[in-house]
């Protein structure tokens, strides 16, 4: 048996949930959640925690040094730091329109990195 602690972000209560994990790796019990929605969240957060990655891309030939970007959908949490390395290597030239794909299929996630702002020269 092992234990995993997850704080629920569903409401200001911020329940500190404890997940008991059996030796077979399966979820055995959840304690500490005060509602059903919270239980659902912590299970999801345990099995597959995902986050939207936001960052910037260095521009070329633009008055603005950076273009803000995001992943179009959440990606696995473990890919956040490796994803930043990909953003750091990328360069972009104007014109870019908001929503344009800057990097497709980031690290095999099938999620694109898109511009969150226009970029003009």
């Amino acid at each position, binding site marked *: 048996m092992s234990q995993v602690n997850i*704080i*629920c*972000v569903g*409401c*200001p*209560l*911020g329940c500190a949930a404890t997940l008991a994990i059996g030796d077979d790796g399966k979820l055995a019990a959840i304690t500490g959640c*005060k509602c059903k929605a919270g239980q659902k969240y912590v299970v999801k957060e345990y099995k597959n925690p995902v*986050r*939207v*990655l*936001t*960052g*910037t891309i*260095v521009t070329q030939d633009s008055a*603005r*040094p*950076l273009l*803000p970007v*995001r992943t179009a959908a959440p990606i696995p*949490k473990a890919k*956040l*730091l490796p994803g*930043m390395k990909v953003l750091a290597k990328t360069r972009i030239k104007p014109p870019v329109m*908001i929503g344009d794909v800057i990097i497709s299929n980031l690290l095999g996630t099938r999620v694109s990195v898109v511009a*969150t*702002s*226009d970029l003009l020269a």
Partner: protein
Amino acid sequence: MSLKNVDVAVIGSGPAGMAAAIKAKETGAENVVIMERAEQLGGLLHQCIHNGFGLLYFKEDLTGPEYAHRFIEKLMDSGVKPLLETMAIGISPDREIIAVSSREGYITFRPKSIVLAMGCRERTRGALNIPGTRPAGIFTAGTAQRLVNIDGFIPGKKVVILGSGDIGMIMARRLTLEGAKVEGVVEILPYVGGLIRNQVQCLHDFNIPLLLECTVTQIHGEERVEAVTIAMVDTKRKLIAGTEKQIECDTLLLSVGLIPENELSQMAGVKLDPITGGPIVNEIRQTSVPGIFAGGNVVHVHDLVDNVSWESEIAGQSAAELIHGRRKSWERGITLKPGRNIKYIVPHTISGKREVTLYMRVNEPEEDVRLKVGTIVTKALRAVKPAEMLKLELSSAQLSKLGEGTTEIVIDCEKRGGR
């Protein structure tokens, strides 16, 4: 020098100003101008490149620049006139605005009504009186955010953040993602200052230590920050001797609160609430000066931009309705008085005749409580925290239960089930 007569002048083009200007136009004001001192509309949203904006207003998870973009598009289509690189430097009590612009020089505006939407400003080291030297490497979290996200500079490699407000935690994540080492977020209170979501996704996700009931007592370094001393505090926020610890770092970020920016409001004679730091407003967001309205962080510091937009729409609508004579300049109202564990309530007064949304903050975190609005409404809540603004809608039916001649309602946050 030029003189311009307009219907509605909005000062500031952040989320508050844009929402107010669009709404004023939609409500029927013809000549609406929005003044922005920067070179683009959107205010601080451009440097808030993280997501979490618009979950309530658009029912979508947007970044700051995306949230701004939606409003900018709408504003450009609406016929509101944007005045960029134009800074209001004075307002007189009779609603004359003096502004300077790089293109037009000195301009005087005579609007029929004004919406104040200047937002807020960060508290600095000066507000805290941290002893020590004055080396380079001390930034407010918002300044660091601009450097990293707009200008492309990383302020330092080993960072300590004082204050666990939302911007501080968001910068802890941003700097970690950009390769800096965040040694810790230091918070004087026994609980985190920002939203739970940020505590989890900014600190826990990256194993950044949160040091509660601690503060920075000394800054070291001559040319550049070399270290800070932190120490624990007791329940009265007094330092506990012997708990001092030195943390090596090259950068100290301050995320120690925001103050509504009301220099212009005060020039116009607008009365401020010492608790919120913003104008005292009635339910239509009119200030104590007839024809001057206010919305967003200039009134009280919000935690979600969605509420900034909604609140400012009320101000914009009222500003337009006043011109058409559909509203009296100031309705004598019912004063809302903060009771047990309520820090403040906005609006400060209501008419009691129309449905209204109240925004409130508590002083202390509590669980299992009940909000009591005089004798007309009670609402049970599982938990309240100073960092999470409370929103309560009062319907006309509920308000009709108010006794004739009511002049004051006390709002309490009571303990539930307790004896």
